[in-house]
């Protein structure tokens, strides 16, 4: 990108193209003169907390440029930025349109049991069901997988392998059914199992590895004193020791995924947790802020300022460790936001875009066959579209329960519709928003945190830290759009 053209200075040139004739060719150029007016391109200026850069953002297309701070006005009012942007606007808009509205469902969260052997304080499923609910028996689970396979085979391109994550509650309480499903459909679905590790013995690990299944484990702190505050058995015993034992057995397995739920109980330990994971050889982890979909989660939500402070410190620590050792620990939910900035279509997680992925990229199935747009909605019966065993998946997708989630966009929401980072946030999460507000038409309860996260992401890019915080090979298969 070249330095900006000299600022045209104050101009009173008419907007009707006047000026031709006596003075020769007009100075008037609509792409320049109409910035932030009429049909001209709009650019918000965003402070990103960097000494040298500010962000200029066209929010509608999620296009941005980090401008040297002292030259931002020259870029805005000079000719090159608007002209270059307008030349690529259609392509940028189409790219965002695709990821927001044109993806096909390709993943399922499947709860094979309502029960759980833990009583985590923030679970998105009601406590009564987790304590005494029922399991899906193996025959029923196989029937469900057959229905899902038929659906995906009729909608996805040939050769595509949808993802199916056994989730919970604790899926290994229905281990026989789950493993039969993986055995029978392992060549079709890409399977994953999200488990609290209590029942994940060597035999189970060997089985899942042999079938190439993803294994997600949950760990909320670097010490039992922290981790066991939220993740405990019904009798109150923590499971940190067991979880770390399994983690050590699984490190190096490419299908390992670690999830941390960030609450007021562990938020201050996030930098130490990153050090802990890195020391254990973990290469990929999620640090997900707890959702307030159920009362327990709401009571555990961290203060937004504190969350931002320690979350960014944890990311800084991850970067420092990468610099020091050459080994990355990618924080997946933040890496996904970075992808949202540099390659929106390559996002892997769909919580920070609107509409969110619930009901359009993935959906969730409960142990009774009830179907909801996302696991977060399984505990909210008014968002159950119907039942997998009674309705076609296609019909379920068209129910009001689904459509009100799949049509919720930031353009409908205050203050989101005016926000420069609305497509780097997505106003998550609709289930949480509904649980707190009684309707879906409200911004993210963690709005300040998500805005701060977007600013931090720009700062990361300005600092040249993008590649260190993203997965290796993130550009593979992508095409660059050069605007400036």
């Amino acid at each position: 990108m070249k330095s900006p053209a000299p600022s045209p200075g104050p101009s009173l040139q008419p907007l009707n193209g006047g000026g031709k004739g006596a003075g020769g060719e007009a100075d008037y150029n609509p792409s320049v003169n109409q910035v932030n007016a009429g049909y001209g391109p709009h650019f918000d200026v965003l402070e990103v907390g960097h000494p040298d850069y500010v962000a200029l953002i066209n929010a509608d297309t999620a296009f941005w440029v980090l401008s040297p701070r002292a030259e931002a006005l020259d870029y805005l009012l000079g000719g090159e930025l608007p002209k270059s942007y307008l030349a690529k606007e259609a392509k940028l808009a189409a790219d965002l349109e695709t990821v927001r509205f044109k993806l096909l469902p390709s993943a399922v969260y499947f709860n094979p049991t309502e029960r759980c052997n833990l009583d985590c304080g923030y679970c998105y499923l009601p406590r009564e069901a987790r304590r005494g609910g029922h399991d899906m028996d193996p025959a029923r689970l196989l029937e469900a997988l057959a229905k899902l396979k038929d659906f995906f085979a009729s909608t996805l391109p040939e050769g595509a392998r949808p993802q199916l994550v056994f989730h919970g509650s604790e899926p290994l309480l229905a281990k026989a059914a789950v493993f039969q499903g993986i055995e029978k459909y392992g060549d079709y679905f890409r399977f994953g199992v999200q488990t609290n590790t209590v029942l994940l013995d060597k035999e189970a690990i060997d089985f899942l590895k042999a079938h190439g299944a993803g294994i997600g484990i949950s760990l909320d702190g670097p010490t039992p004193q922290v981790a066991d505050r939220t993740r405990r058995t019904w009798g109150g015993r923590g499971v940190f020791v067991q979880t770390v034992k399994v983690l050590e057995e699984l490190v190096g397995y490419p299908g390992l995924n670690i999830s941390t739920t960030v609450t007021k109980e562990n938020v201050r330990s996030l930098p130490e947790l990153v050090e802990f994971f890195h020391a254990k050889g973990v290469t990929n982890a999620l640090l997900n802020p707890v959702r307030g979909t159920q009362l327990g989660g709401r009571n555990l939500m961290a203060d937004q300022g504190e969350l931002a402070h320690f979350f960014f410190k944890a990311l800084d620590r991850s970067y420092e460790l990468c610099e020091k050792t050459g080994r990355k620990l990618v924080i997946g939910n933040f890496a996904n936001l970075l992808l949202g900035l540099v390659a929106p279509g390559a996002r892997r997680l769909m919580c920070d875009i609107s509409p969110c992925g619930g009901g359009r990229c993935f959906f969730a199935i409960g142990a009774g066959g009830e179907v909801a747009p996302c696991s977060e909605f399984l505990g909210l019966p008014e968002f159950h579209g119907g039942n997998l065993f009674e309705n076609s998946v296609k019909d379920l997708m068209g129910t009001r329960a689904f459509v009100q989630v799949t049509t919720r966009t930031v353009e409908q929401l205050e203050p989101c519709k005016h926000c420069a980072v609305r497509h780097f946030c997505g106003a998550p999460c609709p289930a949480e928003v509904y649980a707190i507000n009684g309707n879906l038409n409200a911004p993210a309860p963690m709005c300040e945190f998500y805005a701060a996260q977007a600013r931090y992401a720009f700062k990361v890019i300005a600092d040249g830290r993008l590649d260190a915080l993203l997965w290796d090979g993130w550009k593979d298969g992508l095409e660059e759009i050069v605007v400036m």
Partner: protein
Amino acid sequence: MAKDKCTKKPISIRYTCKPNGNQVGLSHYLMADAKK
């Protein structure tokens, strides 16, 4: 007074991804790539 010239270059990065049916779209679980 002459205005200092900034030596910093502007930064803009954007890639597109063709949807191909294998595109990932998950929520709070990240499917790591465990190929058989």
